[in-house]
């Protein structure tokens, strides 16, 4: 088997890391350019994959070779309709993340970029791995650099938050590990390849008890990363403490790893488990949506507000998964993408404000629209996307999820819809208090975003609009594979 475009996609950031290691300290511009170049390579590759992807579905761009024969570990990579958009999301977010922290990071620039690229390599690896061992290794690579990123470059109780985030996610991955080992043992310890495991599971179906206990392990383990209630409290703390680009990656991409893991490993291997636990998932994610919105309303720090809004929006993803119909599934997948772009945009804006004002307290501002029209306008775009305004990709995603929800549980769907009004309320309330109103003379020194940051904003807003106006860009890619996945759940 030859090595192809997918390997190149996760190796490119690694090569970037290698080059950065040998760059002299102090060559900040060179560091930024190298990491931007690495990000651009992944961007180009993910575009290539997106365009070349055959909408008839199945795993494509497959690279498959034996790695450790004795355990049956294979180097097996492939992309399907679920992962292709997420690969693109990742490369867009890292590209924009590097651009938006162009001036923001002034200390240890080299180390910062090394960790960022390392993290991103891990994320790419997770999205493309079809082998449990590689999946798990990449998963850990994606989670661990965040610890250093937070405690070195962070703010606001950074040691506490960094520790909390890391321990929490490691704790979650223990569940995942137990689940994977159980599956490995059940399938006769022949292989760790997810596709082969699936075949073995079909040939030798596990008992109901096995499915009903192992699926929740995987679901909760991955769900922690997707901020499933009540395992979500690491996420707002982590978002707040992390530096801008890390928050963008974290909320934009890392939280999707959780939801992606649920679908790729949990639902793919144990579809009956999802059917059995669907009602519990719906209930928990309903709490996520409504409760997350209520808590977000109470926050006084921009990043906390956005952190809790992410909790609420990731609830929509799991809400869609729990509906067991195509609309819910595709909506959930779309919401992962849409929320990733949107929340990256949010954090980019807040980062720009924080870098200039050194505070993120919503009440401390007032009338800064005067000084920062672009940042405020872009922030408004993010907020509007968050409250599900048509024209942005979030609307299509939420529409699909709620449509699926209405088909499955009409009353629950109606309750969840209240979350949308609450979102409108807190987003616009924050906007009113911080950006509108009489300009506060204290902030007359603020300047608007730099041209480099504007490029990042333009890419993110453009992506949201593009997918919002022409959602078939996403749906045509994802449809077949999601239907296949759904068929496993409903047929079994």
């Amino acid at each position, binding site marked *: 088997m030859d090595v192809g475009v997918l390997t190149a996609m996760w190796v490119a950031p690694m090569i970037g890391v290698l080059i950065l290691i040998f760059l002299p300290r102090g060559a900040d511009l060179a560091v930024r350019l190298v990491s931007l170049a690495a990000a651009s390579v992944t961007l180009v590759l993910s575009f290539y994959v997106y365009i070349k992807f055959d909408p008839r579905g199945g795993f494509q761009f497959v690279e498959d070779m034996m790695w450790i024969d004795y355990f049956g570990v294979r180097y097996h990579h492939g992309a399907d309709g679920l992962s292709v958009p997420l690969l693109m999301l990742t490369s867009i977010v890292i590209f924009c993340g590097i651009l938006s922290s162009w001036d923001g990071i002034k200390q240890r620039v080299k180390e910062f970029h090394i960790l960022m690229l390392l993290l991103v390599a891990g994320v790419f690896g997770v999205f493309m791995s079809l082998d449990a061992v590689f999946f798990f290794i990449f998963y850990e690579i994606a989670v661990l650099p965040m610890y250093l990123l937070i405690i070195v470059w962070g703010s606001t109780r950074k040691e506490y938050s960094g520790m*909390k985030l890391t*321990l*929490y996610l490691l704790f979650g991955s223990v569940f995942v590990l137990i689940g994977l080992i159980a599956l490995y043992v059940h399938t006769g310890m022949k292989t760790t390849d997810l596709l082969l495991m699936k075949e073995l599971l079909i040939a030798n179906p596990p008992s109901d008890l096995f499915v009903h206990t192992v699926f929740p392990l995987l679901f909760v383990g991955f769900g922690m990363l997707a901020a499933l*209630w*009540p395992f*979500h*409290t*690491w996420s707002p703390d982590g978002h707040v403490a992390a530096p801008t680009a890390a928050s963008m990656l974290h909320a934009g991409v890392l939280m999707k790893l959780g939801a992606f893991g649920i679908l790729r490993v949990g639902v793919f291997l144990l579809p009956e488990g999802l059917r059995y636990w669907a009602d519990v998932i719906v209930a928990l994610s309903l709490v996520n949506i409504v*409760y997350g919105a*209520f*808590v977000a*309303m*109470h*926050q006084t720090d921009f990043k906390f507000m956005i952190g809790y809004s992410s909790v609420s929006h990731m609830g929509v993803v799991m809400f869609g998964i729990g509906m067991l119909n*195509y*609309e819910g599934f*595709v909506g959930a997948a779309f919401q992962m993408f849409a929320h990733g772009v949107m929340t990256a945009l949010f954090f980019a804006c807040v980062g720009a404000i924080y870098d200039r004002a050194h505070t993120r307290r919503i009440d401390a501002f007032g*009338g800064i*629209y*005067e000084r920062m029209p672009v940042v405020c306008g872009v922030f408004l775009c993010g907020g*509007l996307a968050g*409250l599900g*305004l*048509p*024209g942005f990709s979030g*609307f*299509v995603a939420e529409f*699909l999820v*709620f*449509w699926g929800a*209405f*088909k499955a549980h*009409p009353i629950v*769907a*109606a309750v969840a*819809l*209240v979350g*949308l*009004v*609450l979102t*409108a*309320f807190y987003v*616009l*309330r924050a*906007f*009113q208090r911080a*950006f*509108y*109103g*009489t*300009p506060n003379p204290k902030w007359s020194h603020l300047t608007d975003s730099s041209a480099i940051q504007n490029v990042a904003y333009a890419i993110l807003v453009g992506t949201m609009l593009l997918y919002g106006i022409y*959602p*078939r860009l996403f*749906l045509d890619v994802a449809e077949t594979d999601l*239907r296949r996945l759904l068929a496993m759940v409903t047929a079994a």
Partner: protein
Amino acid sequence: MVETFEALKIPWLMDAIFYPYFAAFAIIILFLRRNEKLAMAVSLLASSTVLASTLMLFTRHYGLAAGHSEVLPPVSYTLKWLSTGSATFEFGYLVDSLTVLMLIVVEVVSFLVQVYSIGYMHGDKGRARFYAYLSLFSGSMTALVISPNLLQTYIFWELVGLCSYLLIGFWWHKPEAAAAAKKAFVMTRFGDLGLFLGLLMLLYTRGNVAFTDFGAMGLSAGLATCISLLIFCGVVGKSSQFPLHVWLPDAMEGPTPVSALIHAATMVVAGVYLLSRSAPIFMASQTALHVIFLFGAVTAFVAATMACVQRDIKKVWAYSTISQLGYMVLAFGAASSLSSMFHLFTHAFYKALLFLAAGSFIHHAGSNDLFDIARKGGRRMWITFGTTVVGALALAGIFPFSGFYSKDAILVAVQAMGSPVGYGLVMFTGFLTAYYSFRVVFILCRRPDEHSGHGSHDSPFVMTGPLLILAIATCFVGRWEHGFGAYYLGASHGGVHLDVAIPASILAILGLILAAVSFAGGKNEDGVVDRLPMMEIPRQKYYLDDFYYWVTQKIVLGCSRLCAYVDRHFVDGSVNGVAETVRWLGDRWSRLQTGRIQQYLNALVFMVSVLGLGIYLAVM
């Protein structure tokens, strides 16, 4: 039929109606934010293109309709937008007489408002942004009107809501404007939940939301009631019906041209338009129609009483708008889509006129207060004052102005419903309408202060020109009732019904006389009506604002505080508790590591003996 449409280049015209505004918005927001003159030019160019195309569409479609004995079937041109297997959504245009009539309202008023704003917004720093938002609004409104299905309607329904938010908050540095913008968006959004649920329910039960198929849905009465009432929730929010109307008076914080365009003539009537557009579903449920009539009648009455006690000229017209929207809704509730749409049509012109004239007064006097405007020489602004009188005559329903005809049609429909209470209420509301509209006229007519040094010049022609055009429309549109009915429903309707028109006119003239007695001449600032003790209720806006304030502060924010407390202290508390416990245990365990060999040996010996005993017992 489709071939004839193709031959008349109607698809091409629809493109010319749909795209220009969006293009203008994009160009201005991306490239022309600092170039105000050019931004205005681009916006006006788009506006006039769309207006011209609309008028061409009207002449062609009207000509086509005139050649047919019955109403033309709708024709739609669509493009697949979103498909999930169980349903497909299309994006496109729907052309029928309802579309064309509504387009005329939207495009004419949009164009006039854009022209007027050249004068009104002169010297404002954010003019480019203003024109960008106006273009986005007009574009979204146009797209809403030509939408072939409920999903597309919902999409643009939300977008016009966004534009309303942006334009109410246009002067963002005013805290009231910022608050009003948020209130408008959240209140309407609350109603939109119902619309969204209605859309989902229709989708779920029929898998189809195309308007052209609404007639053949075959919904059961219960389902039709349910869906209609859900859709009506959206209408209550957007068309500011009682009890969600409270955002509209606050929305007057926006620039006056915006009030005229969005909060009088076009966006707020989108709800009424949606009612007529989805009429087949509503007509299938008698219960829904009764509920709608009730809401409309209560709104018309309640808002009229509030309009009687306002001092702010824009607030008077705002409450009047709510009241007139109530008329349109109740007309639909009386199963007369025609009179509802006809009133929408006439109202758009005279209310836009009244608002634009109010803007002209405010521009001149620098104050919204009626008595202030009068003191500063309101009546010396001949064109503005004269057109206001024309608008007020139409609003009061005096023959032969346009309001007379459309109100007559509504009253006939209400009478046919056979509900004497409803009929009486609507009649009485007509009296109140005449009173408050002429209250404004008589106050403005007062003698100015001698020392008001403003002279007697009127506003510039870019502002008075649109006023004159709208005044002419107000004078003559009413006469078109037969043509309107024939075009809309395919059969000639209308004609003045004397049994209704005579009592209505008498009441209107009584209202006029009451206003004259109370406010003509003199210096008093309150009339007979203001001294009635019960007028305290409308003055306090029926305590609804207080109620909503209470709900937001106590219930919504209370829930928010509760959730935040639970989150910090219970959910996160347990996480930290686990961490603390682990740390505590570690601390305790570490105490065992004393470093004293004797203790270790003692423990070792003890453990070994316990273990040995255990093994011994087990073996035995």
